[in-house]
């Protein structure tokens, strides 16, 4: 009797397991997906910022024509005469990480730019601390710079927005110029905040492209790196809103940029039904996504990747319909140049919005030719063609 009871209870357990799987999953096919989606959208979607970036996409940037890293959109200038002084200055750079190919490419470019400024006598040296994607480490790095760095200017590429705000404020309190770039912080104390137009613009560019190429009811698989990073979340928030409005059936996944994961996701989606489009919030792993279509023996999707060489090459090789959105990598040059301007007493934009233009199909050949020998992890719009060491330094991709 006993034994039968335990067997029975085990069976009940198994059933509970199955029902649990069923309960948590089944309803989501319909309503709750939308619920979750709106929650996310509420959290990351910012209509004001969306409209601002949407408008900035159409503005012709001002500044030197052949130097996009010095161009600016709708700038309000601030006076920096209080910082004007002569002599070479020491820059202290608190970097979030160099743990993805985009940051690595920028980091190389930044160091070549540094060489130029050192030779010009503007910067004496740049001390860098790499926070390795950790908020805590970066806070400690910034505090170290404040206490013992003997810095003339702080350059900060924040790891995350909210967590880094107090540390950036402490840096501002030293009275020395503070330059923030890439991800933002929730304070306007920095002398200048340098960034490309932003995530919403990326989302709008990519979603509009896919919507135009696809038809209502088509399926788009969105491959996202990770949750919680504002520049990435904004890309998806904008794209998701537009897909929704256009009646595109978009489903999103977090991949951690792991190509094995990406391949599984695409294979499963292809097993479920046709996939007409692939949207990515960063190009890392784009090749694995395309290969999944090849392995399944189906037509290539319409796809948005990034200006990473691996995607551009695969795009060209397969001839698929694609777009390479760009999160301007050349922005890594701008902070050091801004420091030079600040010490020269020249005014700089308070919010320095750099141009951000996707690479359309017509321009792929041009960028492929320009970066012919660059490694797969290189970014086409890296903007370092006029720097010393070009192209060898980027081709060898030796991290400084």
């Amino acid at each position: 009797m006993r034994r039968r009871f335990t067997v029975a209870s085990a069976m009940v357990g198994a059933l509970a397991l199955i029902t649990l799987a069923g309960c948590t999953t089944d309803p989501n096919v319909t309503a709750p997906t939308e619920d979750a989606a709106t929650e996310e959208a509420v959290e990351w979607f910012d209509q004001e910022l969306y409209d601002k970036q949407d408008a900035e996409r159409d503005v012709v940037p001002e500044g030197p024509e052949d130097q996009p890293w010095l161009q600016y959109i709708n700038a309000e200038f601030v006076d920096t005469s209080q910082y004007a002084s002569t002599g070479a200055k020491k820059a202290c750079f608190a970097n979030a990480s160099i743990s993805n190919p985009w940051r690595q490419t920028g980091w190389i470019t930044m160091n070549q730019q540094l060489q130029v400024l050192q030779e010009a006598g503007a910067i004496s040296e740049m001390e860098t601390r790499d926070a390795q994607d950790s908020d805590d480490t970066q806070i400690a790095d910034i505090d170290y710079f404040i206490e013992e760095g003997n810095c003339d200017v702080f350059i900060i590429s924040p790891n995350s927005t909210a967590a880094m705000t107090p540390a950036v404020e402490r840096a501002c309190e030293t009275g020395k110029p503070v330059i923030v770039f890439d991800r933002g912080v929730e304070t306007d104390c920095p002398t200048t905040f340098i960034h490309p137009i932003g995530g919403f613009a990326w989302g709008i560019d990519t979603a509009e492209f896919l919507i135009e190429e696809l038809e209502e009811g088509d399926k788009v698989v969105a491959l996202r790196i990770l949750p919680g990073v504002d520049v990435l979340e904004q890309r998806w928030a904008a794209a998701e809103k537009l897909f929704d409005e256009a009646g595109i059936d978009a489903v999103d996944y977090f991949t951690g940029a792991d190509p094995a994961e990406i391949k599984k996701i695409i294979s499963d989606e292809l097993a479920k039904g046709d996939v007409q489009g692939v949207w990515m919030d960063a190009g890392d792993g784009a090749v694995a996504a395309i290969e999944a279509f090849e392995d399944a023996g189906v037509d290539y999707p319409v796809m948005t990747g990034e200006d990473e060489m691996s995607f551009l090459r695969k795009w060209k090789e397969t001839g698929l319909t694609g777009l390479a959105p760009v999160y301007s990598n050349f922005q890594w040059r701008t902070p050091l140049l801004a420091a030079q301007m600040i010490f020269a007493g020249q005014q700089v934009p308070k919010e320095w919005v750099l141009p951000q233009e996707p690479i359309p199909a017509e321009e792929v050949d041009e960028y492929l030719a320009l970066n012919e020998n660059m490694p797969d992890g290189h970014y086409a719009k890296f903007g370092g063609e006029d720097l010393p060491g070009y192209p060898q330094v980027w081709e060898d991709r030796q991290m400084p």
Partner: protein
Amino acid sequence: MSAVSSDRPSLGRRLADLGRMLVSPRGAVFLLLIVLLVAIALLNPSFAEPGQLIRFVQRVSPVAIVAIGQYFVIVGGEFDLSMGSVVTAQVVIAGNLIGQDDAKSLPVLALMLAFGAFIGLVNGLIVTLLKVPSFIATLGMMLALLGATLYWTGGAATGNPADSFREIGRGGIRDLPVIEILPWSVLVLVIVLAVAIWFARRPFGRTIIALGDNAMTARYSGTRSWWVKTSTFIISALSATLAGVLLVGYAGVHPSVGRGYEFTAITAVVLGGVVLGGGRGWVVAAAAGAFALEALFTLLNFAGVPSTYRDAVQGVIIILAVAYAATTIRARRRGRALETSPGPAPTNDTSPAPVAKEPDPSPDPARPAHIPSTQRADNETKGGS
């Protein structure tokens, strides 16, 4: 097996036995796998097509191979947490050293195997000679390898190796009837599994299990325990290397490939009813555990669980499944045997002295203890039988 069947004299209970087999720790994972596959097929009938199924097997191959490697370590009474990092390191080695040069494929493959064996040897010697608990030793190895890989790559992808090298993970024998393609990975998995089953039945394989069951008796019976243990780590590192080779082909080079594989492998092994702490378990069930896990992930994909809480759903289901396996172990012990051991209690294995009759978390007063016929009458899953 013999101990168990002598326990069941009644012929009329054969059918019940089959049912019990499916809900037993040894069979539970197969039941779970069947349930999951049926659920997937119901959600998405095209999954049941042979072509899709074989693709599924191809995808699971690396995980299953890693789980098979982990099985030997766990059944020998240790853990190997460094497997994921070994996979990552091998993937990066392949990407960086082979490049687009086909001619380098074989030398680099040999180098990777040597490197894998070396890592396993180091792991094993640290555990056996320096007496560092394997949990810590392999955790250290995991971090050391991960750090080295990050240092080498800076944490970002490098280019993929030559297509010829990737063929083994990506390609297969094409133009077959019914299944269209027979991926090389599937063949590799079949071979690895066959070798593992054969190996587990060999005296050496049984020695590993004996060592995990009771290190003291194994030593008294003349086992060179340091070598047996070290060899399990070498096996696991080599299996991780093999998984790395398949993954380079399947996915490509990225420092995130292989991340979390150690836990996937351990979960798969536990799901397969292998007892943590060693001495009990079946290698086929461990491989089936890997299939069940991947089937679960696939089911979540098919069911359209939103990405934001997918991980949470996965975690809960895995805990429930493992708890279920543990419950059936306990239920069987209470039902048939006599040692009222607390839970699946790995510690029980290291102290099999007849003190086992104390605190059960849920003692059953209505059941007077039998006289133990053998100390380990419940040990049906022992020894790859």
